[in-house]
């Protein structure tokens, strides 16, 4: 079972991150008219590298190096997110650029579907390997 898990885990991680990024883009689009909202996005390749190495998605926790330190469960920050550079400034302080958000949305959903296709392909290869024939 471990082999099969290993086979699929990379694409599973990628899909998880794609889902997160889709929520971030949806947030940007939803707040396109909110004053002082700053558009955010994810550095996907860095986030994926971090996730594969097993250090992503964890809330930032305090290190407790002495017995009297107070352990904190960590802030619910989004460690992967960065603010998008402002394309055209607006008076209300909003930095959402609808064109780049729309293209990011299309790109992200296409990549998501690509990951699903990869998983399907891997599953098909596995089935071929198990059944021994193509029929």
């Amino acid at each position, binding site marked *: 079972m471990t082999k099969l898990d290993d086979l699929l885990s990379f694409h599973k991680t990628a899909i998880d991150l794609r*889902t997160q990024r889709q*929520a971030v883009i*949806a*947030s940007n*689009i939803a*707040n*396109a008219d*909110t004053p002082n909202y700053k558009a955010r996005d994810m550095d996907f390749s860095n986030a994926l590298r971090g996730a594969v190495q097993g250090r992503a998605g964890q809330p930032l926790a305090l290190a407790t190096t002495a017995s009297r330190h107070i352990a904190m469960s960590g802030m619910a920050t989004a460690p992967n997110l960065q603010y998008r550079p402002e394309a055209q400034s607006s008076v209300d302080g909003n930095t959402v650029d609808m064109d780049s958000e729309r293209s990011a949305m299309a790109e992200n959903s296409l990549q998501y579907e690509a990951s*699903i296709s990869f998983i*399907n392909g891997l599953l098909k290869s596995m089935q071929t390997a198990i059944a021994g024939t193509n029929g």
Partner: protein
Amino acid sequence: MSMFDVFGIASSAMHAQSMRLNTTASNLANAESVAGPDGQPYHAKQVVFQAQRMGSSPYATGVQVQQVVESAAPLRLVYDPKNPAADARGYVSMPNVDVVEEMTNMISASRSYQTNVEMLNTAKTLLQKTLTIGQG
């Protein structure tokens, strides 16, 4: 964290934009209302949007209507001595609705609404694709 957050975000935005469209409709409908229910001329209303954290996920930020404010612009004075609402000098206080501004507001709100519907449809397509994993 799941793709379902996108539904919450997009629907919060659609709710907020439809509220904006509602105030725009009220403003346009009452652009010539000399007297409202309280006997005063109608004042233009505007919604104030505010970003809102959706659930526990740090990645999901929706939008909500924080408040509805009345425009502080001065009322439009029209000289019309025959009007029963005219003051001693013959001026009638008309609502401070800027019709051109309301029309652009309406276009902006409907475009934002459309974009959020598109976001919703994309999330739905992706979820349906996900459900077909292993079936091909």
